Every structure is written in structure tokens, then in C-alpha cells.
């Protein structure tokens, strides 16, 4: 079944120059392996097409049940140079939570998602 990340995770995002970071945090510990398996670097790059103009890097923080993504060249030059409403990438967090991932029906049922 398709599940939107907002059902599985919460998130916070911020900026470093023209790079946005999104920390994606599992709402429950047992959701973390699903995030780690499904929310890959390439899927995040694809999700943010037209918004992220550079590479996407992904880091794992199993200790926090979290993944950290760096979205390079995403903030219109960054800092004071940017003309964007969200020059600091503060809403990239919820933009990532819009993503849908596929979870096998059995697994989803086991986690009480269906």
C-alpha cells in the first residue's frame, strides 16, 4: 500500500548557505527501518525535482530513528542572496513529508497502518 511520510515521520529543516537540510524522524521506533529502506537518496532527489538543483546526500542516525538529507543548490543562492519566501528552507521539512512510499500490505498491517 502507499503511505504518505506524514503518517510515519516528523521533520525539521534548516539551511547552510544554499543547502537545505531535512531531518526526517520516525514517529515510532519501528517505522525507522522502513524510512531507512524506502526514503533513499535518489527518491528524495526525484521528489524535489525542480526545487533541488544539486546533489542530495543522506546520513543515517539509527540512534535517533532519523535520517538527515542535504539538498544542495536548493535555496536560490541561500542566505541574504535568495529571493525566496523560504530562503532558510524551513518548510522543506513538510515538503518531504508529502512523499508517498510503498509498503507491502502485510508489513503495513503489522504496523497498524492499514
Amino acid at each position: 500500500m502507499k503511505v504518505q511520510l506524514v503518517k510515519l515521520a516528523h521533520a525539521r529543516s534548516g539551511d547552510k548557505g544554499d543547502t537545505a537540510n531535512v531531518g526526517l524522524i520516525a514517529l515510532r521506533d519501528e517505522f525507522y527501518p522502513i524510512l531507512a529502506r524506502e526514503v533513499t537518496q535518489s527518491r528524495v532527489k526525484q521528489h524535489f525535482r525542480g526545487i533541488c538543483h544539486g546533489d542530495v546526500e543522506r546520513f543515517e542516525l539509527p540512534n535517533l530513528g532519523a535520517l538527515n538529507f542535504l539538498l544542495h543548490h536548493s535555496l536560490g543562492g541561500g542566505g541574504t542572496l535568495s529571493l525566496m519566501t523560504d530562503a532558510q528552507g524551513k518548510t522543506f521539512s513538510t515538503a518531504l513529508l508529502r512523499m508517498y512510499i510503498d509498503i507491502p500490505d502485510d508489513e503495513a498491517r503489522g504496523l497498524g497502518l492499514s
Partner: protein
Amino acid sequence: MKQKVRIAAGQGFWGDLPDAPVRQVEEGPIDYLMLDYLAEVTMSIMQKQKARDPNAGYARDFVPLMRQVIPALIDRNIRVTANAGGVNVKGCATAVLEQARELGFAGKLSVGIVTGDDILARLDELLDRNIELRNMDTGEPLATVRDRIQSANAYLGAAPIVEALNQNVQIVITGRATDTGLTLAPLIHEFGWSLNDWDKLAAGTIAGHIIECGAQASGGNCQYDWQNIPDMANVGFPIAEANPDGTFVITKHENTGGRVNVPSIKEQLVYEMGDPHEYITPDCVADFTTVRLEDAGKDRVRVFGIKGRPATEFLKVSISYSAGYKAVGTLVYSWPDAYLKAQAADRILRGRLDRLGLKFDQILTEFVGVNATHGSLAGDPTEPAEVQLRVGVRGPNKAMIERFTKEIAPLILTGPPAVTGFAGGRPKVEEIVAYWPALIPKQEITPIVEVLKA
């Protein structure tokens, strides 16, 4: 040696809730008040203020704040670490001491100041010696913006703040010190941590990272269960309650609003994170993949397990330079067809800018209510009640940016109908002061610590 040190964050940025630091002092027990005032381009604003007035160039709000809390600081021996000094640390300290004397504390208050971070006057000498100060993000040499530089400061770490605290001062004021160093230094001072005990330095650094954005660790901007976070009108700012072994608890004063729990701390831990294995500061390299969190009761989260590694041989330098001008104009279009009207207005505006021959480095149109935050991810808008057209331009030619600002209001009488939202007059032309991050070998920077007395 104290067995527990309570460090309270009073400001998440310059301009945060004015009463927050006072409440941290008055509404419960604390040992230190930590105040972070400096965002990346704040130093350039302060350089400009100092150029106009040699007594200015620091966070002015800090002075009346200290006047308000000095009696309590002395009475309860609460100490302050603050990077409020900007580019005029001595001026800031002098103003605080003046307040202390007026309050009758002559001879009873001393202030430590930390300088040596300001390298603006040394730039040519450094460049001559092939210290290139290349942009960490783009790799460009500093020479490309040399004639437009407005400020240049190395980020100092905890060590000079510790040196000041060791001299028994009540308040330490720094220039460009790291926000994490303002929290780490009191812990090194109180617990006698060695400057190469990397795990403990990393622990103090991560404690600093958690509280440096103020209430963003205690319920503010928190997505997890945000509707049920209690009494945000009365939000309590975070406090790190640290132990000599490097473990600590994040909490807040009793009877304040907001919430400190494991999810709120997780959200703040990942804020502005790069590679979590190496969070680099002047003091150490902290590893965020080692942080362990545990619920320790209502509004208490225990943090432990933190590992660190030796500091690098470099300090980060923040340089600001003038990078042209920008302006942003907005208008609001209402139902029906609000989005279509806003799009039509954008086309008309761009046509006029073309006819005028105006050239910009960048022109950006956003439709607030449709796609300003999530772009194409937002999907097709249904029929919104209103859409704000928001057009920004940026470029080196101030006259062209100014001309742009005169093209917004006329759209009300010369464009699509049902338009409003132009109460503020013409958009303001802003000078852009951009940020240039670089690295400098540590041996080039010598922090200076002085003590001044009231």
C-alpha cells in the same frame, strides 16, 4: 566542584522574545544565562553601525537587559556568557559596567571580554601570505570579492571564555564566538574538564546545540503533536542541567508552557545538521550518531552516550561582503480565478520590465497560497480565496532595482481585477550583504581575554 550546573538559554537569535532571559533568571534556579546574538550576517550590520558611531557595533538590547538582571546575578551568583559584543566588545562591556555603577554595584561586578576574532584589518596581510580564505561552498578565492568586504571574523571556541570565567568574572562578553562555545565553556570551567577530553567536550557542544535556538527545543516550531503542546503563550526556554560525567538533562522552569520531550529534542538535534558524524567546532568534532535520549520525567530528557574526536587545525571565518541590491513586491488577488489573475499580473509586470530594458541577475515569482513554500510539490490548487503575487528581483544596479519598485502599485489600476494588499507603499530596496564562509589555520588567531571592573 559543583555536581550539577544549570545553563539557561535566553535568546535563540538577536530579536527573540525580549522577556525570555529575564524569566530564565527570575522563575527558577540557574547557574548560567547563555545568550546567542550573532547570526551569520549580523557582524556586517554591526560594522556599519560602528562606522557611523564608534561607540556602537554590538547588540544594544544586551545593555538594558543586563541592567534589569544584574542585581539578581550578583545576589544569586548567576553568570552570563553572551556573544553580544559584535565588533565592539569593549564598547559593550563599558556600557554594561556603566549600568552596574548606576545601580550602585561599583567594585562588585567584573566583566570578562574576549576579542581577537576580528580579522578585517588583517585581510591583506593574510592574503599576501597566501592564506586564501577560499569560499568553503564554492571554492572561489577571496580576491574575487576583496573590495566589497564589510566584516571578517574568526569563530572562537570555548577556551578563551573558560579563561575569562577562571578569573571570577560575572559576565563574559565575546565577539564572534560559536554559540556552542557559550554553553561548553561554563562546563569546562565548573567541572575542570580537560581541553582534550573529546567525549566531554562533544557532550557540552551538543548541549549547546540543543539550547542555542531557544524555545525551538521546548515546543516552538515543533511538528510532533504541535496542537497539544500546552500554554505556548507562556513558553519556557530550555535549560541544560549538566553533570561532571558529560551527561545532561534538557528541561525548563516549572510552571512555564511548551514541552520538552524526546521528539522535541530530536527535532532540535537535526536542525541545521550537516554530516552527523562530524559536527565541527573550534573545540572538538562531535558525533551526533552517538547521542542517546531517554525520557526522564515531565519536561525532562536525559542525554548521554556522546562521543567526540579531536578538533581540527582550522577555525571557520565568517566574512560578509556587499553583493548588490534586491527588492520584493507583493499584491493580493481575490476569488474568482485568483491564481489566474495573479499569473496574468506577473506576465504584465514582466512585459513592462522588458520594455523598460531593466536587467536583473535574478527575477523570481512566487504565488503565496499556491506554491511559495512547496513549489510543484504542492499540486494543483483548487479555487483559493486569494493568492498573493510575490515578485523579487536582484542585481548589481541599484537604479534598476528602484525602477522595479515603481512598477508594482500601478498594477492595481492597470492590471487584472479584484486586487488589494498594497498598504505598505513601494517595496524597499535592500542592499544585500552576503556571507562568505572560509577556513583559517588556528595559529593565525590569538584570542585576547581582559577583565574590566565596575
